[in-house]
């Protein structure tokens, strides 16, 4: 038996793990949650480059496993996320959530190694399915509704993607995953299908609608997989498509502005996912080796610090039951571990020196600078300051500091603390020793983040952004509000129009009833009254009564004749 005959997609390990999770003993579940992603990692790192497993499917040669640097990097962070996320969640999450999250991660790993569009599509839909279940595991009525909206959005995205894939398959005869040109309807459909998963405009709202309704542990998983597999798909299929630069810039500023208006701590973080994915989409749009390296590095560090931020928010929610900034504040006193880990995550997302964001995000802005994209570069620098504003300071400030809420929760359970500390350490480690990450980047990395020049400018930028935060603090007074977004159309306007339509139909029905149905009912009733079995014109008359009438008739005739 050769190696290739033994080959199977690494995702299968986690799918089997997901199936085992509900049936094993409670005490064995944490072991499984760590062991399964670990085995997956082992397999990922033993895959050679190139197509490793192919099969015939519907007349096409599908490549179930194709490995390369960038695919391995994304799969690694997905598996790592499943492991640490599972460890964070196992004492609080429902078994259904743990199992669905494992399957969801398996889908992400499957997409990472998909060598053709059909395999990509299958794992893509697999992710849509199980991520919807993770949203539903929020267990509330809001989660149920948000899950339905989320599911519909991703199924629509899936259909658009499938239309594109079929078009490409028919036009070119190839379903290979390779850089595509945006010159046909089909390739545009593929791009749109992928961008829906990346929470690109105009449908960015699905993300901040669904993720914050999941359980405190569920939103940790959700933050990692869907948008980042979309980034990988863009990386592989559409590098250097300049339209992505503008889409990405919109996402960056959309995320900042909406996060600044938001009151719910997990929704602030959800908006900042859109913001961070925006940086990656811009990087793919720039498309140079430097920028693409930056995208891969940034996706890797982003998954870690964003999960860390959502873990600290989740810990706060589990311990206090509160999720609005207006209800929180002052938690640094009794939740020091959560606060410190949350702050490290916040610094990392802001690309503060010696954190992971610093060494990855700057590659994307440098990518813009080296290509002389002046406008893009100025936007990215302003946005970096804006990230510090909306996520770097706003999140920790309103949750852990600001006006004391009087809440005195303890730090969460040991496993939650351990998961947070692990990811916080990873943020710092990658920040201090960037070579750890650079060695695994798809292209030869010759980027040096720690120059005196870069340190000084970044500190100036961030610290003065911090000054702006505290100067404008009165403007940022939290309000018990949400902000309208495109979801208004299907959450509010849609139902309103539907109800108006219902009323219209009912009114027409009533009119029809009055004008047509009632008369049409009264005609048979009249016929029945006069001609029915009991009707005066149809009933059988007794002989006596006939005789009576004949007599009456005779009398009338006689009298008539007499009178005339």
């Amino acid at each position, binding site marked *: 038996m050769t190696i290739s005959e033994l080959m199977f997609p690494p995702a299968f390990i986690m799918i089997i793990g997901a199936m085992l999770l509900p049936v094993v003993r*409670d005490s064995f579940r*944490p072991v499984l949650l760590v062991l399964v992603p670990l085995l997956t990692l082992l397999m990922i790192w033993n895959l050679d480059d190139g197509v490793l497993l192919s099969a015939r499917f519907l007349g096409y040669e599908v490549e179930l496993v194709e490995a390369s640097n960038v695919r391995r990097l994304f799969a690694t962070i997905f598996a790592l996320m499943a492991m640490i996320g599972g460890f964070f969640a*196992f*004492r*609080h999450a*429902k*078994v259904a959530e*743990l199992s669905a999250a494992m399957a969801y991660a398996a889908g992400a790993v499957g997409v990472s190694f998909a060598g053709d569009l059909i395999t990509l599509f299958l794992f893509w839909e697999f992710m849509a399915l199980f991520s919807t279940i993770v949203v539903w595991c929020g*267990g509330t009525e809001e*989660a149920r509704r948000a899950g339905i909206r989320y599911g519909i959005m991703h199924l629509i995205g899936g259909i658009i993607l499938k239309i594109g894939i079929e078009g490409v398959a028919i036009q070119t005869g190839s379903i290979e995953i390779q850089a595509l040109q945006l010159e046909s309807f089909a390739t545009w459909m593929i791009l749109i299908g992928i961008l829906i998963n990346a929470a690109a405009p105009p449908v960015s709202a699905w993300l901040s609608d669904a993720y914050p309704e999941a359980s405190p542990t569920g939103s940790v998983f959700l933050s990692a997989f869907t948008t980042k597999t979309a980034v990988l798909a863009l990386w592989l299929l559409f590098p250097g498509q300049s339209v992505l630069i503008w889409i990405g810039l919109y996402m960056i*500023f959309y995320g900042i*502005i909406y996060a*600044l208006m938001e*009151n719910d701590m997990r929704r602030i973080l959800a908006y900042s996912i859109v913001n961070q994915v925006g940086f990656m989409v811009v990087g793919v749009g720039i498309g140079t080796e430097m920028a693409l390296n930056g995208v891969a590095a940034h996706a890797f560090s982003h998954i870690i610090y964003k999960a860390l931020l959502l873990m600290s928010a989740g810990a706060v929610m*589990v311990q*206090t*039951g*509160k999720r609005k900034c207006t209800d929180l504040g002052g938690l*640094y*006193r009794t939740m020091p571990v959560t606060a410190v880990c949350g702050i490290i995550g916040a610094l990392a997302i802001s690309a503060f020196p010696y954190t992971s964001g610093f060494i990855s995000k700057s590659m994307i802005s440098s990518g813009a*600078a080296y290509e*002389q994209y*002046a406008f893009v*570069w100025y936007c990215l*620098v*302003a946005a970096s*300051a*804006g990230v510090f*504003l909306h996520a770097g300071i706003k999140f920790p400030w309103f949750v852990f500091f600001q006006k*004391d*809420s*009087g*809440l*005195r*929760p303890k730090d969460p*359970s040991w496993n939650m603390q351990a998961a947070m500390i692990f990811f916080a350490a990873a943020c710092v480690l990658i920040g201090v020793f960037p070579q750890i990450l650079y060695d695994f980047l798809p292209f030869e990395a010759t980027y040096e983040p720690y120059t*005196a*020049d870069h340190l*000084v*400018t970044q500190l*100036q*930028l*961030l*610290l*003065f*952004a*911090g*000054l*702006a*935060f505290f*100067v*404008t603090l009165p*403007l*940022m007074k939290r*309000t*018990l*509000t*949400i*902000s*309208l977004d495109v979801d208004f159309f299907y959450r509010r306007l849609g139902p309103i129009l539907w109800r108006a339509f219902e009323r219209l139909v009912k009114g027409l029905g009533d009119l029809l009833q009055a004008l047509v149905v009632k008369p049409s009912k009264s005609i048979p009733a009249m016929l029945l009254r006069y001609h029915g079995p009991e009707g005066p014109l149809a009933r059988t008359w007794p002989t006596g009564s006939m005789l009576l009438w004949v007599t009456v008739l005779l009398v009338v005739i006689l009298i008539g004749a007499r009178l005339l």
Partner: protein
Amino acid sequence: MSEQPDEIKAVPGRAGKGLVANEYGADCPRVETPDLVDGKPHWLVRASTIKILWWVFSVILALTVLAQIFVHVHAYFALDGYFGFYAIYGFVSCLGMVVFAKLLGVFLKRPDTYYDDL
């Protein structure tokens, strides 16, 4: 705490059973006079501490700008070579974003029960 239902208690530690959303924080302690610890404000929130923090912060801000005297900043474009560019640009763009968000909020903000009462 009064809005928390007390008949169901949270059971953290029982693997896999899961918590119902309204059980989170069911036993979270709360103090009535949050601003005072043993009759005094916590050291971090005292007016004197905050004053010191503002001074320290201002000195650090000044240092990051002054550092540009010793460190040559490589400029890619027209403006970014100017002394203190990043400080001014960071401050002004953040101010712009906050004000923009505030103005946009006038049109877009709704009570957070907006989608509930349908």
